């Protein structure tokens, strides 16, 4: 069993509080199933039987779990298991793929995001997204941040909005003297933090991160992880990661996805094997496949 990798000095008081609370919850409900801890935590996404098809290929099936407010939920699993497909269901980015079809329900604050009268544009204003490769716009740092607030028609002093977003993105001190320079001149790690700050500028509620550190060096990765720990005080975060240490370090809850081969290996369908508190997934997984994956036997 791998030890949970955590640098003590990186633990914020909030994180410790959450862990203590989690521990209390575990103690309280020792008899209950390990993956389903009764909690008073607020559910932000209630995902019910979500299936995604690309054309007639089923990409993920029967995804059902709850995501909680002010927590970091990590989605882990081998390549092709549908983690990215799933995270893109949470802000309707799959709508951009013409062949994609999403079935099931994603209940967000009591509303099904896939109900007929929901406008995906409005969904994305509440639920921001950061991508695998930093994708700054070919504009100044200032205009990158101001783009979201401008298209939303946000009122208020744009300079303040930009400054606030850059501060929340832990980038202000590095760029405050060159706000008008092109964002393409920044390092990869800075670009990714710019993309995070850009998402925060529109004051979303949830931040989805699709392998945000996979193109970054370890130091930039560490800074983004620190940033995530700070951000979860005010936001709920869902992160797809290939890096199991990262999931263990930052997340509160972890969902392990796997690939099922059907139709003699021609169809690959992703499904959730196990979902639970991160320390439990990493130290005491309930499923053999989870254990094999987190201990590095495959994947």
């Amino acid at each position: 069993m791998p030890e949970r990798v955590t640098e003590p000095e990186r633990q914020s008081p909030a994180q410790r509080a959450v862990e203590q609370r989690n521990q209390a919850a575990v103690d309280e409900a020792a008899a209950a199933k390990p993956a389903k801890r009764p909690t008073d935590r607020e559910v932000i996404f209630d995902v019910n039987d979500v299936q995604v098809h690309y054309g007639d290929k089923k990409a993920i099936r029967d995804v059902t779990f709850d995501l909680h407010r002010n927590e970091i939920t990590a989605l882990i699993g081998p390549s092709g298991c549908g983690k990215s497909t799933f995270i893109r269901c949470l802000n309707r980015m799959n709508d951009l793929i013409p062949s994609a079809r999403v079935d099931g329900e994603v209940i967000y604050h009591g509303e099904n995001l896939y109900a007929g009268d929901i406008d995906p544009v409005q969904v994305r204003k509440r639920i921001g997204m950061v991508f695998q490769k930093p994708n700054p716009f070919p504009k100044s740092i200032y205009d990158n941040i101001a783009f979201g607030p401008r298209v939303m028609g946000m009122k208020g002093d744009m300079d303040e909005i930009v400054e606030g977003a850059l501060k929340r993105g832990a980038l202000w001190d590095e760029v405050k003297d060159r706000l008008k320079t092109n964002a393409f001149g920044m390092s990869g790690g800075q670009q990714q933090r710019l993309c995070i700050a850009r998402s925060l500028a529109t004051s979303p509620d949830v931040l989805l991160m699709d392998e945000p550190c996979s193109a970054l060096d370890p130091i930039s990765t560490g800074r983004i992880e620190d940033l995530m720990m700070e951000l979860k005080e005010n936001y709920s975060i869902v992160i797809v990661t290939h890096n199991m240490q990262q999931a263990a370090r930052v997340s509160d809850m972890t969902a392990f996805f796997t690939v099922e081969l059907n139709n003699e290996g021609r169809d690959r369908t992703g499904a959730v094997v196990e979902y639970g508190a991160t320390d439990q997934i990493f130290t005491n997984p309930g499923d053999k496949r989870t254990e094999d994956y987190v201990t590095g036997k495959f994947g």
Partner: protein
Amino acid sequence: MSGAQMAARAARQAVIPSASGRDRTFAWIFRAMMYAAVGLAMLALVTLLYDVASDGLPKLSTDFVTRFPSRILPERAGIQSAIVGTFYLMIICTVIVVPLGIATAIYLEEYADRDKWWNRLVEINIQNLAAVPSVVYGILGLAFIVRGPISLGRTLLAGGITLSLLVLPVVIIVAREAIRAVPPSIREGSLALGATQWQTIWKQVLPGSIAGIATGVILALSRAIGETAPLLVIGAAVNPRFNPDGLGSAFTALPIQIFAWTQDPNRDFVALAAAAILVMMVALLLMNSVAIFLRNRYEQKW
């Protein structure tokens, strides 16, 4: 060099043998063939330029540019009406082709579902239209614009529309390429911030591709500027002693004037044609330079 280094070098030479004589000969022959190909192309161009310049340069003067054509007196003939006509044609072309071409390109790249047969049909047709000989556009213009359903007569507007039809497919293809060069990640980033598809196109995709589109439009126009056949077919005026005074006016253009003069039995008129060719080449060179400048200065590197 120390002994150890020499030993290392000897070992390396044994591992990585030098190129064989046959490979070297091949490389040399191939290189020689490429130089010969470039040389031949340059030779043709230089010969042509020399021939035109030796005939035309003595005739070039400000008078030549500002006078109107003459049927009788080569020493009093000029190309003012042809220059003005070509200029107006370019303006009409730009006004028609830029909005239509960009809008079509945006539709095909950003909205069209390629699984639908009608979108594929549009795409294939545009590819084919770009390869249709220009004289066919002239016949189309004559049958539908000059006469037939639209019946504009042999006017400047009819000429402009015909040339627009000719370059529209090229503009669409170039604009599509420029739009496609904007990476999908930029669109995703914009949409994920809650921008609508139109805001994404207007504020991200078009600014990112506008230099490429402008370059393409200018190159397409510089093709239109030299087109003779369609204008001949739709009946541009020959040797008019007046500038077009409106969209409904008769007109001529530089290539028409050149064509008319080269047909003349009087050798002096043929020399005037050479001078007019020089003027047209300068115009083409200017347009292409602007296109290259735009591309180098403003094109977005991703």
